[in-house]
């Protein structure tokens, strides 16, 4: 049976592997960490009393399939550092705990190394480190992860339980300075869901969202201002100018575009959205696999994938939400099957 190497064991790589392995292909997943799961591992279900359609239900099944399928060989703590051969007969040079070897006779290679979070790159906001009331979305994720729907009165565990919360959107996206003029596509829906979770546990909490443009999040969520309003979320169209951490509250200064003047807002929980950014390793991939880097650092093929037998799956190509990443990865698998 044809042999395929999939680089990256996140949801994109795993979904592609699951479809191909089911068709009998001989799959090797090369993963740099010690388990499959990637970024998506860290996300918890955002259902309150309602499903908020974050699509995480679709994910664990895929990982279970990958773990159980005998056509899939998992290589952990392994990095790819070389490519040789030609379409239909590639060799992938790999390094595992200091030992160099290769995977040979590969018919296809799928690159699915995903994205990196803005919080992993960003360095210039000292308040985030110093003030526990200012946090990245992923830090709030950690706090609400241990909520139990069936326990009344869940607390975030901060020194002071919040009476209000502010979300700043387009952090690390839509910014020319950060070389990310694009929209990360996932953060609006994500913050909206987070806000719903907070509202669920703190019905009285006042929530404000600063946004540039509100992104319709994926296929599922008909996210719009009406919806925010229905859920008691205020929205202000701008990126705040400055954030000060004061003793009692965090002060946020912004320009009210409607009134055309400076205004300010006080809160005790400030959540910064995290944009989707390309991984630095994309530069290596572009050289190694002869792929094109776009102006932001995401990858796209130079020659038709059907000719090179090198395919790209998931957020390596640009921001995608979970549902879209899953569909895209299935589509990559189908393309390989249909190309045979």
């Amino acid at each position, binding site marked *: 049976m044809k042999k395929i190497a999939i680089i990256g064991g996140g949801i994109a790589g795993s979904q592609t592997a699951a479809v191909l392995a089911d*068709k009998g292909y001989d799959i090797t997943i090369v993963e740099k960490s010690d388990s499959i799961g990637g970024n998506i591992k860290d*996300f*918890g*279900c955002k*259902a309150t009393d*309602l*499903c908020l*359609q974050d*699509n*995480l*239900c*679709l*994910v*664990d*099944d895929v990982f*279970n399939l990958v773990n159980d399928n005998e056509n899939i060989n998992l290589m952990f703590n392994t990095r790819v550092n070389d490519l040789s051969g030609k379409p239909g007969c590639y060799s992938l040079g790999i390094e595992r705990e200091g030992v160099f070897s290769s995977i040979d006779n590969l018919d296809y290679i799928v690159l699915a190394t995903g994205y990196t979070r803005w919080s992993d790159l960003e360095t210039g906001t000292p308040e985030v480190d110093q003030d526990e009331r200012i946090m990245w979305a992923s830090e709030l994720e950690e706090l609400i*992860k*241990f*909520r*139990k*729907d*069936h*326990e009344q009165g869940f607390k975030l565990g901060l020194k002071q339980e919040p009476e209000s919360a502010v979300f700043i959107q387009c952090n690390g996206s*839509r910014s020319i300075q950060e070389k990310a003029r694009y*929209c990360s596509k996932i953060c609006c829906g994500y913050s909206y869901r987070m806000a719903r979770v907070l509202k669920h546990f703190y019905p009285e909490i006042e929530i404000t969202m600063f946004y540039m*443009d*509100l*992104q*319709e999040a994926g*296929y*599922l969520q*008909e996210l*719009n*201002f*009406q919806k925010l309003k229905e859920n008691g979320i205020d929205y202000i169209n701008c990126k705040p100018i400055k954030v000060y951490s004061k003793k009692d509250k965090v002060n946020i200064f912004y320009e009210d575009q*409607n*009134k055309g003047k400076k205004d300010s807002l006080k809160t005790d929980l400030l959540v910064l959205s995290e944009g989707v950014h390309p991984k630095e390793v994309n530069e290596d991939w572009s050289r190694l696999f002869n792929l094109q880097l776009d102006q932001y650092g995401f990858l796209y093929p130079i020659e038709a994938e059907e000719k090179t037998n090198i395919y790209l799956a998931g957020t390596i190509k640009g921001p995608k939400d979970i*549902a*879209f990443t*899953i*569909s*895209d990865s*299935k*589509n990559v*698998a*189908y*393309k390989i*099957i*249909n190309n045979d």
Partner: protein
Amino acid sequence: MLDIIYIGDQIKSPKLNTLCIKPEALIEFEGEIGNFKLQVKDDDKKLKDLKTKYIVINIDAVRENNLEDTLNLDLDLDQLDPNQDIIIIQDYEQISPAVINKEALNKAIEIKNKLSEKEVYFLYRSMRFIDDNDSLFEEARQKGIIFLQYEMGNLEFIDKDKVKYERDGLTSELQGQILTTPLLKPDQRLKRIIRLLNIESNGNEYIQSTNIYLQPSLTGKRGVYSLAGARGPNAYSEYEFEKEFTLNEIKSNLDNFEPLTENKRVVDDKKCILCYTCYRVCPHGAVQEDKENDAMKINELACYGCDGCISHCPASAISIQEKTEQKASNNLLKVLMCENSADTAYKKIDKGSFKDLDIEKIPCASSIKKEDIFKFLRKKDSRLLILGCFEDSCKHITGDGRGNRITNEIRDTLKKLDLNHNRVIFERLSPRMEEDLNGFLLKWKEGESS
């Protein structure tokens, strides 16, 4: 045997054997993936039998002019009076889908390019960004198009060419030629197709589009896909990708269709009274009438094995072939876990504390039977916990609702019998709620109940 029959509009599908029929041409429908049988009336009113492996419903949404007395978005630019300003109104009554937003932005830019001396006002409630909508928006702003956000109630039509606009206490009147974005409505023929094919739709006359298992173009029925306006206005946003996905998925599996379940569900034709309850209940359209045997039958390839039909059949005529009998147990605590949600979460838990619970995996919360549950409740002090999915993340589309409803009926009955109704509890869980599950199971075990 065709590969695909398109109902509605044809899609270019190289290397596939396809045919396109009009929605009104479909007369009869039966069969399952790999072997759908359609009776179609052609233009000469002759009946024709067709067979196909797959079906793609691709019926455009219908565009309706939003307000009389206003111009349409798709008008010819020459129809515009070059001496008057232009007012484009989007989202009146109904928030426009992203695809209409895109059209409106494009039109605004086109108009501004042509009538650069005139003001172009763009009134909207919500910008919906897909593809390059954001750059269009930016381009439009740079060109000097004036964007004004309004709320319903703050915009008033005074005259054919005049609107009053209010925001933050400031009122202004705008005068000019008014263009409104169209409303998208489901094609009326879609209803009939949904009925003939017996597919789940979410009640708004479009084909179900919010269930997470039906993304990006699947329907509840295996082998039937829906695209674009058949699916709903928002499906236009990713139409190109969804089309590609659909064709690739179909191409990758043109032969050798395998059943999705291990054990066949069979209808006892001596017991079946053809009441069509199973047909109505099946979220996957897997049931149809077996005219030869005068009974209903379950299509093996279409069945997802949720067992909703078994629990709902009023004549107890449906059963699982070769089902292994559950071992009888004297345990007073029993948990029924939906295999798509709770059981997936349970796999991640340290099970040490739950060794003394009877835990049974069930295909769907809608498969629970009153009869079996009361049999269990006969043991004094026995308690039952049913764990199902959240709405919209139920693999069997409407199973969560049915499971919940059956449980409520059981609780009602217990109340009427003066028995403790909290002996039976239904909870919703997702595969990622293992923390919740752990905490909840511990509490439930201790005897606390919500």
